[in-house]
């Protein structure tokens, strides 16, 4: 890989990252707390006991089709910038997986099958971890995402231990690849390339 300059992680560069990724992946970004449909989903999830409505609206980004509902404004100083970058990779990886699996199959699996939902989320957490690794040489940065105990995290997605076990194993295997310097998720590759974190001259 040719050496290039690293792009500095600033509010402006994060904003530019989201704009660039939105153009590359044909995605649209929406404010989650302002979205009527997300408020309805939040109430529904709370009613069926899966997740607290406030947590859903303020702590989790959600991607439906090519629309990303974010609990922060890109570049905002209210959420750590690296966390925003990791979220960008995570949510765009959902778009990659959806396009690989096919729109109908992906959405059906996501809604109806906890084990496949766990697999998809695991893959997208790999994208976050890949980005984090190339920024900090850590799989998860302090103060960015919860210190990932993936099985515990997947519980918030309605996936029990049995459904999550293969997804956790898949994640663990991917982490070995990351620690060897490999980046497998397309969205993470694009984010890392945007910032020039791989093979750049610091």
């Amino acid at each position, binding site marked *: 890989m040719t050496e290039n300059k690293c792009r500095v992680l600033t509010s402006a560069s994060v904003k530019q990252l989201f704009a660039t990724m939105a153009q590359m992946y044909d995605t649209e970004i929406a404010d989650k707390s302002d979205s009527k449909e997300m408020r309805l989903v939040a109430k529904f999830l709370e009613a069926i006991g899966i997740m607290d409505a406030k947590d859903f609206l303020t702590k989790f980004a959600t991607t439906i089709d090519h629309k990303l509902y974010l609990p922060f404004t890109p570049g905002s100083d209210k959420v750590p910038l690296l966390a925003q970058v990791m979220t960008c990779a995570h949510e765009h990886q959902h778009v990659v997986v959806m396009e690989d699996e096919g729109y109908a*199959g992906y959405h059906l699996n996501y809604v109806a099958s906890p*084990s496949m939902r766990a697999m998809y989320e695991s893959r997208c957490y790999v994208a976050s971890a890949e980005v984090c690794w190339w920024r900090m040489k850590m799989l998860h940065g302090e103060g960015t995402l919860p210190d990932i105990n993936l099985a515990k995290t997947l519980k918030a997605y309605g996936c029990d231990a049995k*459904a999550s076990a*293969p997804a956790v194993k898949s994640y663990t*295997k991917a982490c070995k*690849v990351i620690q*060897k310097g*490999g*980046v*497998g998720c397309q969205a993470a590759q694009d984010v890392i390339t945007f910032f020039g974190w791989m093979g750049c001259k610091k």
Partner: protein
Amino acid sequence: MSPHVKGIIFIAVMAGIAVALAITLGLLFSGCSECRPSTVRCQGDVLEICAGNETWAESEDCGEIMDAENSPWTCCEETDAGEPECLPVEECQ
């Protein structure tokens, strides 16, 4: 028949179609190849894992991995871990 009843019939028919479609799609996308959850295998350069629903799912496409040295990666069948995993080609014996 009142418009109200017609509306209910229409909704019932649409719901029936939606359920039938969901079942058909579920059968189409559930996969036929049953497996033991958490076992892994190589399918070409793709590392697959048996998901909790006992169907094969992609874990990682080893052939798509990029690294700083532009090394090619592959799904390696025989590894120190005793099961398939993604490795740089030069490390896969």
